[in-house]
């Protein structure tokens, strides 16, 4: 590598350091900037975790309190729902599914980014995933919990929810295994369980680090229990790597299957607007789209506030934006294809549904969805925009809004024009906004607690993609590196030692 590459490397992690284009493989940008040592990475990541409880930063305290208040409000709302029944919602004939299902699909969609990042990108050896996988997985789990609470609450008789599970009972009754709603129960539960295992497995070595650094008894016990006796021996690492790989192989198909089954909730019914074969891939693309947007929304403030800009660099942001652009375009294609199929089928009911969708009483929702989901991510074709933190945050936020509206459009506009004109109706939410806010409360409460007490970056894995982890790394004492896999950045950082 030439000396010019070192000279041109920007120090600001918010500016891409694409260097050494004459050597596209070796000259790849370092995944961790700033020339940190392993120890510095540990210090950086654990800084917020290791603060004494009383010294929790005020912003985080406020966030946890706000999330907790939202969560408590959600508890109250559930009690109210339990007492009054689903009549407190605007759901009625013909719109029998509304915000309850919209919120469910919204949250379960968000939950798809975590496993995609941790499983599929892992199996494809995308090393940049290590900087973002931990909180993407945490986000997944909390999002799936929020989704489960929506779907468990929408049944109306909440105390009968155990009917969803095939439990032996004196009634001789079993769930209807021919119903996609039943498949959904299994899909979501499997997803939650596997994601939780995956997340936890990855956390074990980092918990051990926290345990070993702990100065207080309760922290030693707390992290010690979570670390499961991890000592970091080679045998442990061999088992860890195997377990991680197996779990990755388990979760990879789940990324595709879970939202496919969620889409079956709609597609298997015979309602125009729902009964569409394009739904499974369309829903999966939408789920990844919304999940990545939510990761961006959470990640961009977090990296600034927690001082993790050197670990989550603009390269990560740009990669995420590329996936948002890809999946956003796929979603746009699916929207267009729905119209084409409606036209090409020649079916007047199908045709009416889609014309009504864009020009009927809910056209405002439809066009909100299109502008947020189809138009806004297209701006990411511009390198200036997709490498800009501010733009990324704003556009990701638009995508979050757009993806909520997508579910609203699919669910409500397809239902509100029944086959019988006399039953046509216009759905208006009553108290549902508290439902949505409550799920956000649940989500942020858990997520911020996670940020406070668990390492938000997979330290052990990030270290493994740093130049020091390369067996051929000869940074110390050799000046400009020459080993294979040597990164431009490593030489910049450690050349000074020679």
């Amino acid at each position, binding site marked *: 590598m030439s000396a010019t590459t070192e000279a041109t490397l920007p120090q600001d992690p918010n500016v891409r350091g694409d260097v050494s284009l004459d050597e596209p493989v070796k000259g790849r940008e370092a995944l961790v900037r700033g020339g940190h040592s392993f120890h510095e990475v540990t210090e950086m990541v654990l800084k917020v975790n290791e603060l004494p409880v009383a010294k929790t930063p005020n912003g985080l305290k406020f966030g946890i309190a706000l999330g907790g208040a939202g969560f408590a409000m959600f508890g109250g709302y559930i009690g109210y729902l339990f007492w009054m029944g689903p009549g407190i919602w605007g759901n009625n004939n013909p719109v029998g599914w509304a915000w309850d299902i919209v919120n469910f699909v919204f949250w379960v969609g968000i939950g798809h980014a975590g496993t995609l990042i941790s499983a599929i990108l892992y199996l494809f050896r995308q090393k940049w995933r290590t900087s973002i996988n931990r909180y993407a997985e945490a986000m997944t789990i909390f999002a799936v919990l929020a989704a489960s609470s929506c779907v468990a609450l929408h049944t109306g008789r909440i105390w009968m929810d155990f009917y969803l599970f095939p*439990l*032996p*009972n*004196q*009634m*001789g*009754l079993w769930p209807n295994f021919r119903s996609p709603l039943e498949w959904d129960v299994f899909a979501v539960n499997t997803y939650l369980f596997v994601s939780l295992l995956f997340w936890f497995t990855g956390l074990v070595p980092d918990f051990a680090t926290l*345990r*070993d650094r702990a100065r207080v008894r309760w922290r*030693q*016990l707390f992290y*010690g229990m979570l670390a499961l*006796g991890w000592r970091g021996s080679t045998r442990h690492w061999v088992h860890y790597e195997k377990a991680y790989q197996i779990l990755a192989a388990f979760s990879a198909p789940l990324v595709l299957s879970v939202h496919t089954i969620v889409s079956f909730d709609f597609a298997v019914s015979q309602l125009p607007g729902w009964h569409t074969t394009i739904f499974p891939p369309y829903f999966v693309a939408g789920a990844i789209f919304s999940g990545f947007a939510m990761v961006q929304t959470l990640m961009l403030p977090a990296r600034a506030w927690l001082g993790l800009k050197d670990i989550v660099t603009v390269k990560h942001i740009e990669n995420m934006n590329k996936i948002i652009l890809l999946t956003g375009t796929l979603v746009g294609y699916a929207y267009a294809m729905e119209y084409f199929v409606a036209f090409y089928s020649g079916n007047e009911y199908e045709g009416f549904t889609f014309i009504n969708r864009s020009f009927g009483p809910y056209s405002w929702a439809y066009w909100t969805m299109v502008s947020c989901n189809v138009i806004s991510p297209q701006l990411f074709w511009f390198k200036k925009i997709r490498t800009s933190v501010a733009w990324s945050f704003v556009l990701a936020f638009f995508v979050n809004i757009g993806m909520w509206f997508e579910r609203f459009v699919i669910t409500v506009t397809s239902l509100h024009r029944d086959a019988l004109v006399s039953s046509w109706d216009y759905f208006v939410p009553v108290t549902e906004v508290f439902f949505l806010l409550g799920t956000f409360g649940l989500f942020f409460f858990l997520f911020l607690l996670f940020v406070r007490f668990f390492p938000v970056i997979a330290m052990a894995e990030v270290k493994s993609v740093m130049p020091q982890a390369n067996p051929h790394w000869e940074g110390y004492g050799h000046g400009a590196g020459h080993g294979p896999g040597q990164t431009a950045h490593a030489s910049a950082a450690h050349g000074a030692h020679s």
Partner: protein
Amino acid sequence: MAQIFPKWTNETPRLITVGSLAGLGVTIFALYWWGSPWNTDVGYGPKQPVAYSHKLHAGDLKMDCRYCHAYVERGPHAGVPPTQVCMNCHKQVKKDSPALELVRKSWDDGKGDTSIPWVRIHKIPDFGYFDHSAHMAFGTGENRAAVGCETCHGRIDMMEVVHQNQPLSMAWCIDCHNDPAPSIRPIANITSMGYRPDNMWKDKAQQIAATLHPPGALASAMRTTADGKTQTFATAGCSGCHR
């Protein structure tokens, strides 16, 4: 560095595994059997206000069940007899027995207006529709048959104090509706106790079962399974019993 955890904690993975498996087993057992009517209801035989013996009346004296439970073939309830029915005999028989004190008080020379507070034993919930008469005769023409009293109530002729013999759970209903043939008998034998069908009737019962229709359905919906049983689609419609 000092050890954080004592040595016994090495056993926790095993303890957790064994403990959670055992916990799961106990939970399933508790819900499935211990909390079910097989455990909670079968054998329920409360003390009645009058020490009436079914063993004496229905067993030794061979009185027909329908003498007292007169509406069983005509209405949804078999009916608890009014005091008058007791007094039909007990005006002459054992008319001064101290055991019948409450009965005489209730009757009061035909002018009494207090009922004997019998304690109800067999009860299905209000959301389950049940009609005795539908079980006392079904099928048409040649295929007329019935379910006997003892099939659901057990050997009443042997019970000093009546107790619940069957769980009356939904699965119990459905099991019979899915394979009614072994439980049906000729109408003449409705009240027989200890009835054993002969082989000819067993074949006939299969035939009859195939003509039946599930609760609430107007058409026959029977099918023969691979092992030769006749099944109703009793479970095909919830509204047969949950109307």
